[in-house]
């Protein structure tokens, strides 16, 4: 079987569901003839026709809003925002409507929508093309926020997201769209939502990350292993609802934790994870939960983006400090 990239896994999942479920429609800017600016929808319009794979006019509020209307009438819209930096005009419909329709109508109407968007920095893109604001969406009641970080998880989680009866924000880490290949059988098997994936077992420290930052996090884990520190690496994958149990189980073993994300630190999801660890695992903690994150600055233009993005060294530094805690300066 051929190995495919995360990007191709997205395409494969979309094609699978378009084939399997006549209620599925895919739309967004340039997703049709052009196959998407990243080619995530390559070939889909040709295979499934321009009635099911549609180029929209340039209007994100509209993209978010029509998905709501479509979903209430039984379709399964999969809407693409070209970049996460352009999703905000759609927020009103996502927050005030998609996330609430089921609740507001007491189950009469619902919004099984997938809103896809590539996110994150590191590809030398222009301004507004490198955002990581998953925390904004994860704060919204009624939503799911899902981030795949491997081809297999992209395929399995996207299938699950499309089949899920509720709205899902599906954020694709574009820096690793083509980074690694994997065999991903097109067997229509979804992976579970609302579950962490333990990517590496370890007993000394728990490293939590998602999306592209998992690359640096896993690299750091390898490096730590060489230093005799066995890190457990957890990919929450579904950021909301968060499977904190898997995290706490890990803390039972390790008592130490570092969370890594690209997004700005203040109010990022690292805070929520640290807070829940504090609540559920206070007595297990041997050191403060550390956050390795983007700075609380605007994502810089690309010349400085690598200075902004957390790197392996930063993860290592935080992990070592956590291992050493309380260290020499302790009172």
């Amino acid at each position, binding site marked *: 079987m051929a190995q495919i990239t995360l990007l191709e896994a997205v395409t494969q999942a979309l094609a699978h569901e378009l084939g399997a479920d*006549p209620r599925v*429609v895919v739309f967004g800017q340039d997703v049709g003839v052009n196959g998407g600016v990243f080619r995530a929808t390559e070939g889909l319009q040709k295979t499934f026709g321009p*009635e*099911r794979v549609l180029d*929209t*006019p340039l*209007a994100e*509020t*509209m993209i*978010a*809003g*029509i*998905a*709501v*209307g*479509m*979903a*209430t*009438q*039984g*379709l399964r*819209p999969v809407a693409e925002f070209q970049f996460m930096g352009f999703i905000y*005009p759609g927020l*009103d*419909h996502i927050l*005030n*409507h998609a996330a609430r*329709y*089921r*609740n*507001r*109508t*007491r*189950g*009469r*109407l*619902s919004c099984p929508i997938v809103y896809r968007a590539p996110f994150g920095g590191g590809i030398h893109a222009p301004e507004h093309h490198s955002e990581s604001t998953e925390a904004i969406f994860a704060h919204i*009641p*009624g939503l799911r926020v899902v981030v795949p970080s491997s081809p297999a998880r992209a395929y399995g989680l996207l299938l699950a997201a499309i089949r*899920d*009866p*509720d709205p899902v924000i599906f954020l694709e880490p574009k820096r690793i769209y083509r980074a690694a290949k994997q065999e991903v059988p097109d067997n229509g098997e979804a992976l579970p939502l*609302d579950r962490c994936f333990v990517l590496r077992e370890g007993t000394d420290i728990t490293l939590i990350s998602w999306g592209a930052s998992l690359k640096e996090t896993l690299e750091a884990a390898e490096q730590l292993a060489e230093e005799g520190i066995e890190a457990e690496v957890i990919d929450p994958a579904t950021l*909301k*609802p*968060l*499977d*904190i*149990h898997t995290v706490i189980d890990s803390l039972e073993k390790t008592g130490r934790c570092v969370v890594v994300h690209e997004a700005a630190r203040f109010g990022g999801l690292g805070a929520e994870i640290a807070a829940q660890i504090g609540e559920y695992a206070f007595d297990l903690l041997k050191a403060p939960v550390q956050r390795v994150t983007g700075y609380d600055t605007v994502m810089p233009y690309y010349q400085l983006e690598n200075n902004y993005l957390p790197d392996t060294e930063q993860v290592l530094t935080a992990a070592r400090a956590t291992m050493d805690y309380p260290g020499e300066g302790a009172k």
Partner: protein
Amino acid sequence: MHKPRMHLLASFDIAHLQYLDEAGRATQELPDFATPDTLLAFYRQMSLARLVDDRAVKLQRTGQLGTYPSSLGQEAIGVGTGSALEKSDVYCPYYRESGALLERGVKIEEILAIWGGDERGQDFRHAREDLPLCVPIATQLLHAAGVAFALKYKREQLDEPPRVAVASAGDGATSKGDFHEALNLIGVWKLPAVFVINNNQWAISVPRSAQSASKTIAQKAIAAGIPGLQVDGNDVIAVRSAVADAIERARNGEGPTLIEATSYRLCDHTTADDASRYQPEEEVREAWKREPLIRLGRYLRNEGLWSDEQEGELQRELAEVMEKALRAYSERAKDKPTAMFDHLYARLPEAFLEQYDQLAGEQ
């Protein structure tokens, strides 16, 4: 400086439709649907809408209802629109909608429940596929565009019968980007959608003249390349005629229409508002002369179709209907607090079970 010579690229006309003038006189031959039975049904439904609004406002005044938006003076728009839909069409209302909701079979106690702070009101017993009342201005127009897409899609891809999405909004709503994006999309995708704008001249305290420099709202359709027209929104026959024609064209695959129905908000914006702070008294007095119920009543009386006696009988009947609905509303048991989690997701994710239990335990 000499004036450049330009060549004409395109011309557009915007027209106005009316059947009954202020005095209730026919200004042209009435359309075929305007049989005595239909007109009497309009009269009844507009009267009922007015009664519902009136009682709802009173309920609010006595603390039995939250903020309520009356449609006083605009009943012809709701009833004219609502009566033009087939049952299987999908209605996408905004919030000032008693007349249309009643036409769709939404129960009075459901309307009251919504404004009484109870989501169960939106779980319409009938009109199960209609969208719920929508508070964020103009957003329902995009939902309606999505609904129209779904109806077209289901017709073409899944062999279902032709259906139409009809949405309503206020004049203020036409200033919002959602209006433009929705109108543009239904135009370019030629969707089976009809947008009806209740131009009641005010968006809370902001007059129509401060919303837009456009002479009419109907002409905003030109931007989307679709037909737009203005109807006398105090003339239920004109509203019904225009909406029904537009629905028929949409159903036949001939695309969408924007309809501006001109009227006047003869009430406060909601019970939380005091319109006397900004509506000129003289303007309100003039507007009362054009209101839709008296107008249709005059026509019916002139035609010998209506009398004081019939009016008395109708009012008694409607009062009973209302009484029953009020009872149903006030006897409704309060929803259980955990309901806020029960319909949050199809199945409550494990992550929230602890909160659910906490909430359940607090009761």
